């Protein structure tokens, strides 16, 4: 056990003050910076549910027990987890607590005069001494002119035979500006999150949508988002073109996506034609319309045995690989009195190749489009009100058709081909169109954040590159009757090299000598 007497217990106020002093110390700032950096790592390693929910579900399926723990720790939502927020809030508090007092001090310092010359200038880190014939007053006047031309701030004449000057005060201004702007950026981003929104909607070529919440496939919005903020436009996708690199080592890489849309800014307005490309979103009233990802929508016609059309039109399929092998389903609801619902599961290959490795697509553009399909009958469950995916069949109450040999029913179709299903219906592969997934988003506060960030960098550069230093010039009549001129410098910044200051003091001295020579052709001893 320690033999020291225990410190008397701190009163709450003192304790509060102690906490505050700790929190606003540089050491804690340093630790919090590191802590935040480390805390950001897991979010880059583990899948995050607001970025890639599919990957999160896959991870959960693979590691059910681990995932439970991760859930408790918020590992799938690191950047909105309380512990993450705690760290950056502590950093912000520390920053404000550290910078506000400094701002105040700096404000006072900016308005104060450079201090008096110390008595022994020769003790300063940079020092020069010369003797001249001019009188001390002449020397001091010229020294003022010299220092002023070097953009030093001068103290008023104190009549003490010396000039005090200071330069580089903007360094601290830059430092304060930088830190304050960090807060501005953070507030702008956080505030923007309250008002912003992001919506997705998938549109096949030839279709369109109006910008309303019910038409979106998905929407994420801040708590202050108001539906009536949505710009009331509507948009028809007239064509969507995808180009791919035809040959060479990057064959098959997407080269160009371009959507041509008929755009109506508000109901009743004149439609106009617009083009949206990757990196070239369409801007409407502060909202941006982006192409997020593309795909193919094969078109089918399903007829019953009598030739009555049960379903027709393009159906969006989801790309599964770089060659746009795409999967999707066609759901055909049939009135109960006419028989079972039909469900068709199909794979679309833009450039189909069938060999011993099985069917696959070898190029993303439709050079040899084909679909491979199988079919189910039963109850699709469309009426029971449960949410269902448009890309997948709920197979709970469906049975797969069987082919002639008792195997599951399968068919391969090229454009224009028709297959007969075992129950006598027909399905025709009519062709395909492309689709694009559009994102409509508004990032509120982005202008403020940008301006804040740019000002922060400017402040940072001031803080890093300016050197705050003081220079004094003293002139007095020496023992031999000549005037002894002393020039000395002191820097405040730890990081500047001493020789820079020595150079500067030398330059001030030389400049002063030049001026003296110019005015009187004095001899230097």
């Amino acid at each position, binding site marked *: 056990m320690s033999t020291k007497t225990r410190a008397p217990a701190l009163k709450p106020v003192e304790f509060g003050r102690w906490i505050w002093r700790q929190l606003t110390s540089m050491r804690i700032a*340093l630790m919090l*910076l590191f802590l935040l950096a480390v805390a950001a790592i897991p979010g*880059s390693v583990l899948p995050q549910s607001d970025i890639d929910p599919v990957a999160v579900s896959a991870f959960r399926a693979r590691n059910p027990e681990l995932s439970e723990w991760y859930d408790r720790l918020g590992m799938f939502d690191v950047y909105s987890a309380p512990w993450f927020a705690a760290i950056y809030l502590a950093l912000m508090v520390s920053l404000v607590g550290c910078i506000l007092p400094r701002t105040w001090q700096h404000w006072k310092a900016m308005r104060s005069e450079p201090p008096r010359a110390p008595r022994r200038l020769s003790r300063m880190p940079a020092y020069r001494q010369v003797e001249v014939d001019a009188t001390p007053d002449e020397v001091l006047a010229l020294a003022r002119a010299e220092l002023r031309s070097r953009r030093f701030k001068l103290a008023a004449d104190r009549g003490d035979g010396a000039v005090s000057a200071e330069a580089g005060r903007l360094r601290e201004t830059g430092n304060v500006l930088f830190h304050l702007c960090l807060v501005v950026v953070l507030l702008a981003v956080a505030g923007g999150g309250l008002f912003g929104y992001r919506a997705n909607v998938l549109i096949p070529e030839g279709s369109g949508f109006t910008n309303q919440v019910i038409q979106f496939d998905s929407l994420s919005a801040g708590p202050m988002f108001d539906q009536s903020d949505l710009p009331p436009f509507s948009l028809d996708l007239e064509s969507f073109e995808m180009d791919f690199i035809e040959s060479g*080592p990057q064959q098959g890489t997407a080269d160009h*996506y371009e959507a041509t849309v008929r755009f109506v800014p508000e109901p009743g307005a004149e439609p106009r034609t617009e083009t949206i490309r*990757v990196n070239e979103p369409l801007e409407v009233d502060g909202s941006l319309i*982006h192409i*997020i990802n593309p795909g193919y929508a094969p078109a089918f016609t399903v007829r019953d045995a009598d030739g009555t059309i049960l379903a027709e039109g393009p159906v969006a399929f989801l790309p599964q690989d770089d060659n746009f092998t795409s999967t999707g389903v066609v759901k055909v609801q049939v009135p109960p009195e006419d028989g079972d619902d039909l469900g068709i599961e199909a794979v679309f290959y833009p450039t189909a190749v069938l060999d011993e490795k099985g069917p696959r697509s070898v190029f993303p553009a439709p050079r040899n489009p084909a679909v491979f399909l199988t079919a189910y009958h039963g109850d699709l469950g469309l009426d029971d009100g449960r949410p269902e995916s448009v890309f997948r069949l709920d197979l709970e109450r469906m049975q797969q058709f069987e082919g002639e040999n008792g195997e599951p029913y399968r068919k391969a179709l090229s454009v224009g081909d028709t297959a007969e299903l075992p129950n006598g219906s027909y399905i025709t592969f009519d062709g395909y169109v492309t689709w694009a997934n559009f994102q409509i988003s508004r990032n509120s506060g982005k202008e403020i954040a940008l301006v804040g*960030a740019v000002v922060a960098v400017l402040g940072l550069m001031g803080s890093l590159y300016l050197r705050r230093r003081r220079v004094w010039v003293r002139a007095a009549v020496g023992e031999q009757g000549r005037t002894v001129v002393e020039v000395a410098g002191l820097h405040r910044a*730890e990081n500047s090299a001493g020789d820079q200051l020595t150079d500067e003091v030398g330059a001030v001295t030389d400049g002063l000598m030049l001026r003296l020579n110019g005015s009187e052709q004095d001899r230097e001893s």
Partner: protein
Amino acid sequence: MDLDAVAEWSRLVVSAAVIVYLTAWLAFCAEAGTLSRARRTAAAAQEHERELVTAGSHGAGAGATSVSDDAVEPGHAHPSGEVEQQAERMGRIGRVVLIAATVVLAIGVSMRGLGTERMPWGNMYEFSITGALVASVVFLGLARTAAGRAVAVWAVLLVFITLGAAVTVLYVPPGPLQPALESYWLVIHVGMAVVAFGLFTVSAVISALQIVAERSAKRGAVHGFGASLPPERTLDRLAYRLTAVGFPIWTFGPLILGAVWAEVSWGRFWGWDPKEVWALITWLAYAAYLHARATAGWKGSKASVVALIAYATVLFSYFGVNIFFNGLHSYGGL
């Protein structure tokens, strides 16, 4: 002319540069080796002389007193003139060869740019060769100072390794970019990342040497590797200055312009994807380094350790993120 061929030949030119860098490296090694041998001999002579002085034989050291009379820093004994000249010659050769290597590399990088008709930083291979070029130019600027020359051996070795890896493992045949990358933002955004990368690299080498120099000074070593380095304060300041140039560039290019580009390209300026997260981590780590230097107890090698950690995050931001987080499906075994 066939542009693809120009871009392909660029690989040969870059490979040639690798060999020239190797030559420069060997010359710098020879310089360092000669100097260190000379220093050891001189230190031994000094030691010997001191023994003689303590033994009371005043006359003996008269011829060689320049050694002890000079204001020699502890641990920096003067090597003899002839050997020094020899080392100086090797150093000069090294610098000339280094200039040649940089020129050859610059040609190789430009050919890649011309051949692909865009700025040569569209993939890891191009980023690496351009980054190595930047580091090499920064280093040529430093090579005029004594401290700069002392880090020559290590900086050139690093450039050599980076380029070697680039032309072998990282090599990608020339080709256009994905649509998302075709933007003038790419030029500025990635361009600034490359420049900061080069600066941080040289700075990290110097920080590492600072640690060695400080340790050896603490031990009071007179010869050996640590003693042959410039004073640790000089190294410390040099590393800081390079970081001070690199840090605003990193803030502006990767972070701010990255966010601007992301907003144009994806409609959100910050989405916590691994690349963004790591650019932020790097930024925080360097902010920690700058703060460390401003805090009294963290001067010298402690700050250098922070700088090295920060540099590790730079490497990870680039190589790690591209290699480990390439697809959204690569989270597998974790």
